[in-house]
């Protein structure tokens, strides 16, 4: 009948059948009684907010945006998107100074880089941590990522002509972390790709992907970044390049959050943005060869970051790692580490953050690997701080495993 065809809902939140599976998979609900949970905060809350914005609940800020609710939803409801969109739409309170600082990873990196040793020394001191806790509400128990004195961008620019000589080319979205904190990871990627005969290019001036801005109430700035990045990504894609990333959150943000939370059309570039692990795995599957060190041995445990779960790409990293001869791999049961980017740095979230991560920490201690492999830098900070185990990006492990 005609009306049956006509009235299929366009509203994603109406596809929720209230099965409540998402509440079982929500890491926050298990530890924080103040959080109403994904079903209430998402599709249920949406109806109430449409009735009256008064029903917006500030407890939605406890959502870590891990997207595990969306992964678990059998009806394909964008639960976390609903929650983050509601925060963007209804939370009109200005972000705190702390949140602005935490969110501005790009800006803070630029500030810290020239005086990196000083900053690193300063942030490792107990007194600095106490001061940050008191003045800004950044938890004093947190360890801070170290800054590097030289940015990855300036390093790669120096090697641009050498990279351009490779017959095949790929663009690299390095993100703030590689640029300011860990240029070595970028160099590791270059080493691996070069070994495959692929040269690495920078984008024409990338900006921070903006995820920390989105979750810290700075969506207007995030949208500016998104538009800029879509434009520079577009240039690379137009030139026939794939764009690889080593940070799962950067890749996920540009692929999914731009579109669903910021309303920025990324359709022209979305499918060309890949995790480096997926890109390399597919190359190897299609016959490309890497020369592995014959005597390489490492016991590693792979932790799948939440956003890797959401993209469904953990399997590529896992397969890639399994291709390394001499790598003894345990895949850890999927669980959130609890940091969720800037979330765990906040004093009010510290206890929840550590409680959420405890399950994962336990699995790691049980596996007792030499290193934990993980595609996400904030997971790395959390795991290293909370368990003492070293965490390496799978690309760095691969770089170590191949011949120089």
């Amino acid at each position: 009948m005609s009306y049956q065809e006509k009235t299929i809902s366009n509203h994603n939140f109406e596809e929720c059948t209230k099965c409540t599976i998402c509440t079982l998979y929500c890491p926050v609900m298990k530890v924080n009684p103040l959080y109403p949970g994904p079903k209430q905060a998402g599709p249920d809350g949406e109806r109430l907010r449409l009735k009256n914005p008064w029903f917006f609940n500030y407890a939605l800020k406890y959502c870590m945006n891990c997207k595990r609710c969306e992964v678990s939803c059998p009806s394909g409801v964008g639960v976390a998107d609903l929650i983050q969109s509601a925060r963007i739409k209804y939370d009109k309170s200005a972000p705190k100074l702390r949140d602005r600082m935490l969110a501005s990873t790009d800006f803070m990196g630029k500030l810290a880089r020239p005086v990196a040793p000083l900053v690193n020394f300063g942030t490792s001191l107990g007194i600095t941590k106490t001061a940050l806790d008191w003045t800004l509400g950044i938890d004093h128990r947190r360890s801070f990522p170290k800054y590097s004195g030289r940015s990855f961008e300036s390093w790669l620019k120096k090697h641009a002509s050498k990279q351009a000589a490779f017959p095949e080319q790929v663009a690299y979205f390095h993100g703030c972390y590689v640029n300011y904190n860990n240029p070595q990871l970028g160099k590791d990627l270059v080493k691996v790709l070069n070994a495959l005969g692929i040269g690495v290019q920078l984008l024409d001036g990338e900006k921070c992907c903006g995820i920390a801005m989105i979750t810290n109430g700075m969506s207007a700035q995030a949208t500016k970044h998104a538009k800029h990045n879509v434009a520079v990504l577009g240039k690379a894609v137009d030139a026939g390049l794939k764009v690889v990333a080593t940070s799962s959150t950067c890749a996920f943000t540009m692929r999914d959050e731009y579109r669903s939370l910021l309303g920025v059309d990324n359709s022209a570039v979305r499918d060309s943005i890949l995790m480096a692990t997926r890109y390399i795995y597919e190359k190897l599957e299609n016959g490309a060869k890497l020369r592995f060190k014959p005597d390489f041995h490492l016991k590693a445990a792979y932790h799948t970051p939440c956003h890797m779960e959401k993209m469904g790409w953990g399997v590529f990293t896992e397969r890639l790692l399994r291709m390394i001869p001499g790598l003894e791999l345990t895949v850890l049961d999927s669980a959130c580490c609890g940091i969720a980017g800037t979330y765990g740095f906040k004093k009010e979230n510290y206890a929840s953050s550590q409680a959420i991560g405890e399950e994962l920490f336990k699995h790691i201690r049980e596996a007792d690997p030499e290193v934990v492999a993980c595609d996400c830098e904030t997971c790395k900070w959390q795991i290293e701080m909370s368990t003492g185990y070293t965490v390496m990006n799978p690309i760095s492990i691969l770089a170590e495993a191949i011949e120089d």
Partner: protein
Amino acid sequence: MKQNEFDVIILGGGITGAGTHRDCCLRGLRSLLIEKKDIATGATGRNHGLLHSGARYAVNDPESAEECIRENMILRRIAAHCVEETDGLFITLPDDDLGYQKTFVDACRKAGIDAQIIDPELARRLEPSVNPALIGAVKVPDGAVDPFRLCAANMLDAQLHGGQVRLGTEVTGFIREGDRIVGVHTVDRRTGENADYYAPVTVNAGGIWGHGIAAMAGVEVGMYPAKGALLIFAHRVNNYVINRCRKPSNADILVPGDTVCIIGTTSTRIPFEECDDVAVTPDEVDLLITEGAQLAPALSSTRILRAYAGVRPLVSADNDPTGRSISRGIVCLDHAQRDGLEGFVTITGGKLMTYRLMAEQATDAVCRMIGVYKASYTENTPIPGSQVKSYEEVAGKIWEKPSAAQKSAASRMGTRAADISEGDASVICECEEVSAAELKLAIDRLSASTLTDLRRRTRVGMGTCQGQFCACRAAGLLAEAHGCVEKERRDLADFLQERWKGNFPIGWGDTLREAEFTQWTYKHVLGL
């Protein structure tokens, strides 16, 4: 006076009966209300929930229009927590005659309705869901009213003023002394017990069933039933009431009410035998969606929650088969004057909007008959819960942790929400955010004895899951209150069957998926 003797007996627990009961109690009468089923089971609970400004009637029925706007303003004052002051739009679409707008606005102003012609562009800004093709718009003081809440609050106030209520009690006959009705024979439909009640006046406020009640008393009230079908959408598409600026027709009112919005209605004459079980047909669903999408195109891609129909108690005046041209005016019959039957009053016609005025007229008639000379003061007396200054403040008083249930309770109960501040904050109905405390209060104070009764008083089970999760939880509370699990098991089955009845006519897409899921849960997991 004996236990079973009263000043007045009121038959019918709809809004007219509840309002009359309250007015009688406020005027100091000992009043008994008898209802066959539960409050608001007839037309009261089966309409749009539109707080008419009267604009719809302004052109054809100016008297009704004047009554509407007057009562509209009174209800905003005395029933604030039952009313949402949304305002409404009367839109002219390209197919409509824009010339009608002037006739309409003139008629509105004459009736005292503040109707303002606004620019179509402004209308699109005020109400983004409105059909963007509109060529004209008039803004009027329409609103939304929750009829269940209004009815329950009237009942509660009557109770607080000494009124008594027998729900689930059917009148089986009248007790006569010559040409006078002096009481009623009743049977309790749940226990089967018979009881007689006496009063010098009996008021027939039975809505469409008033026709049969009058016949039982031996008098003829020429009523005829006009069925109106409506659809409930799963969320609010619009925030203004949207009407068509043309001669009243089918499916031309879209009302935002609480968490949903409702499109209606149709108007079809049906036989009296069908009044107890009206079903919505596929043609009606088709018509409602097609016409509804003219008002707000988004309706054609919004999930439909339920279809339902009510029966208007129209009083015959001419031979119009649709009932559209009949006055919705109030009919208050003193059967002593009309038929020579003493002690019997019928109050009918009218509409939800004018219930208070109907109640006032009926109570005036009662007072006249028993020689009590007191004027009604319901016009200026707030019903319980409505003295709300700020919902934020009310919400803040219930429980410590801010939650959606707390805000929902405040918006549903108004100041009465203070009564649950000590209660159990566990959420029973997750879609509509109803707490255990709110349900327990409805069981204890608003005489709810089944799940359906609870639904009418609290919105439990009215959300998108249609009782899938809340029904068994709420059944647990009822079983505890009544100390009987077996009875509650049957009630649960009845409730789910009733929910399915509303899903059936629109059973496709997400609604069907959800209904299937409910069936699996109750049949296969819980073994019901």
